[in-house]
């Protein structure tokens, strides 16, 4: 699993990246009441706002950690957005993206680097 400074996580299997928000991000957001996942078939570039997660208080953008084509979105979050709080780094995944270039993955932080980054926040 790799991480971004915007608190997304990425797991790579072959050329498909599964993307979600970190446990830290979910905790900071509080109770998630709505998630807008990206449309399947859409091409995203790293850094694009590609999903939205909403708490009682506010809506927050989720940024694409990597570039590629969205091939799946987590339908569970439509009816059960609270899954993002209950299981942020597994069942609460947002989307699967087919990478145009898998080397992007290697540029992301590993868990130790992310944990160290959190300490600086």
């Amino acid at each position: 699993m790799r991480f971004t400074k915007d608190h997304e996580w990425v797991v790579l299997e072959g050329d498909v990246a599964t993307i979600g928000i970190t446990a830290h991000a979910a905790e900071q957001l509080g109770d998630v009441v709505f998630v807008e996942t990206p449309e399947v078939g859409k091409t995203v570039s790293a850094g694009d706002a590609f999903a939205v997660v909403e708490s009682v208080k506010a809506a927050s953008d989720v940024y694409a950690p990597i570039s590629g084509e969205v091939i799946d979105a987590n339908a569970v979050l439509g009816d059960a957005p609270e899954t993002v709080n209950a299981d942020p780094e597994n069942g609460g995944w947002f989307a699967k993206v087919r990478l145009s270039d898998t080397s992007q993955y290697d540029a992301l932080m590993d868990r130790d680097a992310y944990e160290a980054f959190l300490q600086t926040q």
Partner: protein
Amino acid sequence: MSDTPLKTTPLTDAHIALGARMVAFAGYSMPVQYPMGVMAEHLWTREHCGIFDVSHMGQARLRGVSPLSAFEEVVPGDYIGLKPRRQKYSVLLNKAGGIIDDLMAGRPDDDGLFVVVNGACKDNDFRIIDNELAGQVSVDRLDDRALIAVQGPEAAAVVQRLVPAAADMVFMDIRAMPGLGTDLIVSRSGYTGEDGYEISVPASEAARVWALLLTDERVRPIGLGARDSLRLEAGLPLYGHDLDETVSPVEAGLTFAINKNRREQRDFPGARRIVQELAEGPARVKVCLRVLEGAPAREGAEVADLSGAVIGVVTSGGYSPVLKGGIALAFVPPELKTAGTALKVIVRGKLQAAEVVASPFVPHRYVRKL
């Protein structure tokens, strides 16, 4: 943002000790939520009793020969007719009939009029009142007092155990009284739609009173996040969002605050516009919307008719923990204000079904008689 350091309330240290997440609000460092979180704090207040630090709000005494009649020069409410130990909601108006602020003003004792205004507006409000009523009243700010709101279905039991003298008060009663080992100004009112009290205490006593309230197991501290979602469910407007200097009290659905005798006398700022709007209807009106699908519609979201034409705007909106869906206050043309009218809200480019509903979203539970 300016570099002015944030002000603190007499309870800031208590919030930090409770693990609150502090944010800048109205120039103060204020708790937006405690570790319990906005959702749980909201539901706790609806089911039990929440306490809120609202010490950022402006408290003042207006003193003079006839402060009630003087005050009527800046608001449209009947304050000459305000009975002792009662308070009344009103709006401070500009000459164009727009709302400078909304406020509570009452007679807790025989020492003039006690006024509570919004924190972000207080310096401007008190300057305007001081200017407009120069020679008639003195505006004596009570910056040495804190304000604690105690809200929820168990608030009455919590407060009455500690302040037995507050037991025979009803909604919008206000009294200065000794209690909790100090001097209090207690009103039975609030900003959540629930029964409850707001208690003004000397700043030096605030931390002790706050801690005392928290010793009751029915009580939890509640932050500004839940304060906002609670007032939204109660259909209550928030100054700077639903109300501003362009919005009239008629547009905002606050005609109850414009008393009949004042309408006839037309002797308040902006009376021409306001009386005309009362007679002919305003150009836009505040409505309550339920968002029936998709994301919550928040402040700034456009409101469209069923053809997709933009006809209004959301001035505050979010997720209702009680209704488990999106709710919003919006301004629309008056022909679309009827409950049941189908509309659309536009969130991130998507048209989502919405419906006009009666205010409030969640029933008020004020105790109007004992």
